[in-house]
């Protein structure tokens, strides 16, 4: 760090009663697969939305929002999911939560398949294990209920008595840094964006889930509030032994909070791997373009050329073969003919890339050489 007298700015968040506990050991080593079975296993998840129109409201086209997405979420890690609009990350989140029904593919939580008859996991039980925080802090809260009731609703529905549910809600308010005596009876419109998002987090934690999906949870907040909420999330994760799936379009935030990152493009996973390595050495051309499109923070070295031209294409008629080929500077004929599989490039077992250039003997002129054993 350069600079002379480094005067630190206050770090303690003014209303955080939660002590900063040691960061979870697992966080740094979550990428070392093979240690434990994945907590969540998503296999070939697919969702196509029909576009209806015409005289008889027939299905005229299919929006291929999510197409054959497979990944794991390891216990105790934070998996970041990044991508631009139309990539399917929000749809993936809702499919994981089973808020929408998938057209294909399976989800297995802790080894048990969701919806399976034998030894499967019911949807109700899935919801106990996995909860979600939405982006719009305002519309995720019932404007007619005091916030304590919004939080208590989940436990109440799952059998906890009214009094016990309220008690839990008050404790959770405290845990997210809001004084229950001041905030319990308030209504959503009386809170600021950051405070509302804390309430949403408390609501998500009310059922003691093991996985929390954060769908652009801090995107709508001011930068200073965002930092406060991120600190809170990190603290809670350590305290309560949580696993996070963090969806965002903000690459900086994802880099800060994630252990592994998954990059999506047009309904498919294009790259997945440990965060630092992925950011330092992106293999997929889209990842590379995405990362270099971030605005420069150095006024003396401004960006000179945009890494990608045009807009993300329409998920209705995605390009054949590799979906990124229409904007990829390295596209060749094999890319049009064959869709690349998500595979580990040679010599890098922790990563997976869906690109012909990372697969030896794929037919691409720039394909890497195989690593000799």
């Amino acid at each position, binding site marked *: *760090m*350069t*600079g*002379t*007298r*480094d*005067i*630190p*700015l*206050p*770090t303690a*968040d*003014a209303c955080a009663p939660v002590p*900063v506990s040691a960061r979870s050991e697992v966080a740094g080593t979550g990428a070392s697969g093979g240690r434990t079975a994945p907590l969540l296993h998503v296999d070939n998840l697919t969702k196509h939305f029909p576009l209806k129109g015409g005289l008889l409201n027939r299905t005229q086209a299919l929006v291929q929002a999510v197409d054959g997405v497979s990944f794991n979420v390891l216990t105790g890690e934070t998996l970041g999911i990044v991508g*631009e*609009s139309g990539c399917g990350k929000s749809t993936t989140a809702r499919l994981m939560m089973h808020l929408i029904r998938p057209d294909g593919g399976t989800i297995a939580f802790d080894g048990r398949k969701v919806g399976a008859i034998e030894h499967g996991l019911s949807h109700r039980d899935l919801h106990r294990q996995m909860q979600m925080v939405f982006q719009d802090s305002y519309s995720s809260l019932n404007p007619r209920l005091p916030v304590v009731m919004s939080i208590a609703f989940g436990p109440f529905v799952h059998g906890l008595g009214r009094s016990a549910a309220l008690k839990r809600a008050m404790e959770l308010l405290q845990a997210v840094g809001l004084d229950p005596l001041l905030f319990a009876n308030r209504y959503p419109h009386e809170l*600021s964006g950051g405070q509302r998002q804390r309430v949403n987090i408390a609501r998500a934690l009310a059922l003691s889930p093991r996985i929390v999906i954060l769908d652009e949870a801090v995107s709508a907040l*001011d*930068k*200073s509030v*965002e*930092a*406060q909420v991120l*600190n809170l999330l*990190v603290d809670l994760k350590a305290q309560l032994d949580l696993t996070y799936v963090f969806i965002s*379009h*903000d*690459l*900086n*935030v994802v*880099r*800060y909070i994630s252990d592994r990152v998954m990059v999506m493009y047009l309904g498919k996973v294009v790259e997945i791997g440990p*965060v630092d390595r992925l*950011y*330092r*050495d*992106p293999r997929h051309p889209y990842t*590379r*373009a*995405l*990362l*270099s*499109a*971030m*605005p*420069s*923070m*150095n*006024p*003396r*070295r*401004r*960006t*000179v050329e*945009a*890494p*990608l031209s*045009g*807009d*993300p294409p329409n998920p209705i008629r995605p390009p054949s073969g590799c979906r990124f080929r229409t904007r990829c500077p390295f596209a060749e004929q094999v890319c049009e003919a064959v869709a690349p599989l998500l595979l580990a490039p040679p010599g890098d077992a922790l990563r997976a890339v869906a690109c012909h250039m990372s697969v030896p003997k794929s037919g691409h002129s720039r394909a890497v050489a195989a690593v000799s054993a």
Partner: protein
Amino acid sequence: MQIQAPSRSVVSVENLHVRFAMRDATVSAVNGVSFELEAGKVLGILGESGSGKSVTLRALMRMLPPARTRVEGRIRIAGHEITAMDEDALRKVRGAKVAMIFQEPMTALDPVFTVGVQIAETIVRHEGISYAAAWRRALELLEMVQIPSAARRLKAYPHEMSGGMRQRAMIALALSCRPSVLLADEPTTALDVTVQIQIILLLRQLQQDLGMAVVFVTHDVGVAVEVADRIGVMYAGRLVELGSTEEVIERPAHPYTAALLTSTVLGSAFGRRLDTIPGMPPDLRALPEGCSFAPRCQFCQDACRVSMPPEHAMAPGHTTRCLRIAAREIELAGPTLSARNTYVGGGDRP
């Protein structure tokens, strides 16, 4: 060396105050903003929500609801005294001398007319040339903003275009009458990052080619760094710091600016607790006496709470509203943003 030439400023704002009279209270959205902008330069106004940046921008074109708004101060744009003009005269200036682009192009473009028609009509209304000539100009404009297949897109409706293209169309519409000043209200906030950088580069190029002065409002530090020659940091309706981009980013001269820069989440901060600014922005209905940042400032002293610090020039062209900085009692040293941002991706930048 500073060229002291206010006569070359194409935008001149003096002591702007904007107050909204609401049902139960008066909201002081802008409390004494002054700045000058030369032709061909970009001023980035950086601030969070509630800082008054968008209100300032709209006040420059007097686009605030007249019934509830009280505007004080002097605004001069391209030689016109905006504050003294009547509505008819203002309408001639809007679009022709001063143009504005918005965050949400879907609401800025009329959905029932094609893009070509909207642009051509604006040109005809302001410049009085024939419709055919205006149509040709519209085609040139769409090509200038790098919309592919421009001729076909002239006949497209806004909803038929993608987000990035709509934004470009909106820029074309804004530039149709060759304004000398462009006001941009967070035009890239709603865009994907790969599109955002394209629009930023486009705006920079257009601004240089056409020699326009641009006032660019944003909450994103990175965008401000890419776009602006000078940055003004706003907090609670005041410019707490104003200076060249290099100065403000590398040598911030106000505790709020420094706090904003360090609390911008950087990927390299992994493993450390993020620095946050404690507390919340002040209630604009009841601003405290004295420096509005004082309740949240770690350097606050009693003198800071007495009255609002005046503007003090740290260096020519670099002003700050902080008593202690002005008196050189404290120094906001610390790692510069650029040094901390370890570059990502194999490629050109270090």
